[in-house]
């Protein structure tokens, strides 16, 4: 599937920790370990936006990898 735009609510749900998912792609998991904690400590719109940018970037640049495709389906259905 294509990578949903950054405005999709799913990105915000992930970085804020509102929804937790079991993901496969190691880089995204390591990044999220830091981002979710940072957003919890500082849930400002700017911090959420910066976090979404980083997460989106990692998915967009690795969208050809099967584990990333699996994770996209897990998050966005």
């Amino acid at each position: 599937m294509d990578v949903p735009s950054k405005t999709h609510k799913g990105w915000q749900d992930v970085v804020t920790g509102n929804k937790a998912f079991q993901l496969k792609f190691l880089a995204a998991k390591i990044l999220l370990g830091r981002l979710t904690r940072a957003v919890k400590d500082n849930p400002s719109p700017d911090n959420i936006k910066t976090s979404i940018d980083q997460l989106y970037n990692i998915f967009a640049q690795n969208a050809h990898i099967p584990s990333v495709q699996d994770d996209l389906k897990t998050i966005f259905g």
Partner: protein
Amino acid sequence: MRQEILSIEDAKRKIIDGRKLLLAGDEDALRQLPKGDWIAGTIPYFISHERGGLVSRDLIFATDVTDIVTGMVIAQYDQNSLARVYAEGPKHGFSFIVIPATSQTHLSFALNGPNYKSFGVRPLVGWIAGVHLDDLGKRTPKVFNGITGDVVEDGALVLQAELSPKKLAEIGIINLFEQGDGDILTFSEDGFSAKYVMVNGEKTEFAPYLKKKKLDTKLPLVADYYGVMVNISFQGVDEADGTVKFYAPVFSGIRYKHAKPVADYVKSFGECLGKECGADTDQVVFSCNCILNYLYSELENKKTEPFVGPVTFGEIAYQLLNQTLVYLEVKDL
């Protein structure tokens, strides 16, 4: 065989034959090699298919990527320019990095790597070079650029490997440590040492806390990074000033717990492979394991099949890890 132990003469032969190699060996052994398409870090400890764990100053561990990569460049970074390592990784391939232990570049990467631009967008895998434990304080870890012949004590060498469009690189880890059931430990600042720790939110002197709780410092602190267990290994306690030192930095805002004990590393390793650690071993190109696992789990003469490789002073799977096996797979797309 992609990963194998070689004599110095056999390693020379492979280099002269034009093979593209990721090498590990004692400094004196690596210095005997001719120029060619190779990158290396110093370490005389290995896990081999034939003998399991071993220490040798006369053997070289070689990972041959000739038939996997379509092109390679070796880039050298310092502690400042290393911030570009993710952004400059090959668009279709992987970056293989080796950094000398305790160098400024090592310390900087450990602390700042997760905040580098474009963290994780391209695969970055590798290890921290070390020395024979008898040489600690006498010799320094080094990395070698086989193309130029440069030997680097402070800096990072990165082999940027291009893959065929039909292949992809994925990095995996096997960490046998899990968070225990004890206190939640947090730190007020990032760093390789800490005098104080927040124990369930209460500021406490760390060294006396470890002593009072009788915590085994051979077991790491473990953080849960969205399901990935990331270890911080204890280096020691400075009794004079009460500072606790680590082999990798703790980060503020991350919740750590002391690890559950692993009774038998080799047995647990085998059980892990049979369960969730799902690497397709035919596709594993490179792997390495931590010197602390080698020492604490007494891996000399023991095998961790199918994984072999250098025994390292730190492992890199996107960021610095401790007490963890790291591997790189190259798969058909």
